[in-house]
């Protein structure tokens, strides 16, 4: 019950974040979605994910607010709205059609069908020595996945630092002076 209320609230906040005219209000809406997702993780009894979601949400909110404050971009909505609306509706229809057929095949929510997990739960403590099963899975059984995630984060940080680095901006400033 609480989960459904939270999901409705998240959908509502996401629609507000998309539709509102003010950029700062939109950022606040995205933050509301994130914190509701954190509560949903707590209700689903996943404290690891809840902690990570909360902390990352705070950092993203600080960065986004600092990036958007006093910097309202004008919203362009005129022109071609008939085509845009039609394209959106067509995409939603196609998505719903395929999602309906795909979701019928899934097991019901909370039904543990995956047989690998049974072995992790039974053997996790004995094989890794870690009491926190989530850590045992992400850093021992599935550590290769974690290495991939770390690589993705590394690449994104390098990309951001390359875009925002000093020498490139100095050259642009010199060009502007000329």
């Amino acid at each position: 019950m609480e989960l459904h209320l939270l999901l409705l609230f998240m959908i509502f906040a996401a629609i507000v974040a998309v539709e509102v005219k003010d950029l700062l209000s939109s950022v606040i809406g995205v933050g509301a979605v994130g914190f509701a997702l954190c509560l949903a993780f707590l209700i689903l009894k996943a404290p690891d994910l809840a902690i990570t979601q909360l902390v990352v949400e705070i950092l993203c909110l600080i960065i986004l607010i600092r990036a958007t404050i006093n910097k309202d971009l004008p919203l362009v909505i005129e022109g071609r709205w008939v085509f845009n609306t039609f394209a959106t509706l067509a995409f939603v229809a196609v998505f719903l059609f395929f999602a309906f057929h795909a979701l019928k095949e899934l097991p019901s929510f909370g039904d543990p069908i995956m047989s690998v997990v049974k072995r992790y739960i039974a053997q996790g403590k004995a094989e890794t020595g870690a009491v926190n099963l989530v850590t045992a899975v992400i850093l021992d059984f599935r550590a290769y996945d974690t290495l991939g995630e770390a690589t993705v984060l590394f690449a994104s940080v390098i990309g951001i630092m390359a875009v925002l680095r000093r020498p490139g901006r100095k050259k642009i400033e010199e060009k502007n002076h000329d």
Partner: protein
Amino acid sequence: MIDNPKNGMSLLVKTITRITVGLILLFGIYIVLHGHLSPGGGFAGGVIVALSLVHLILAFGREAKVAKISMNLASNLESLGALMFLSVALLGFLGGTFFLNVLNKGLPFKLFSAGTIPFSNISISIKVGVGLFAIFLALIILEGTKRKR
């Protein structure tokens, strides 16, 4: 220099920051080191450590230089974290396969247990925390150069 009232936020924020920032840093380190015993782990703990430094910069202002980490040092530390995680992975070759938990497992519920998992947690926390803090620093430095123009 830190107490310069022109930089950063008001006196109330600065005083409370002085009290809380050490606790936040300590909590982040606790979450990292107890990642294999309690909820949390390298990712969340690293972000909490980064948030304590962000907290300092937000309260005292960019000019006060309370968090003495430059962009260069940040990117070097991030690469160090990535290399540490990779070397933990390569350590598994001592037992035959990539990412094998070769160290002594120890007793459950003890701090020094679970073999290589605490080392993975520490290296991931360095990588994630310093990486996200570097993004924040880059944005702040960018804002500073824009203001000078």
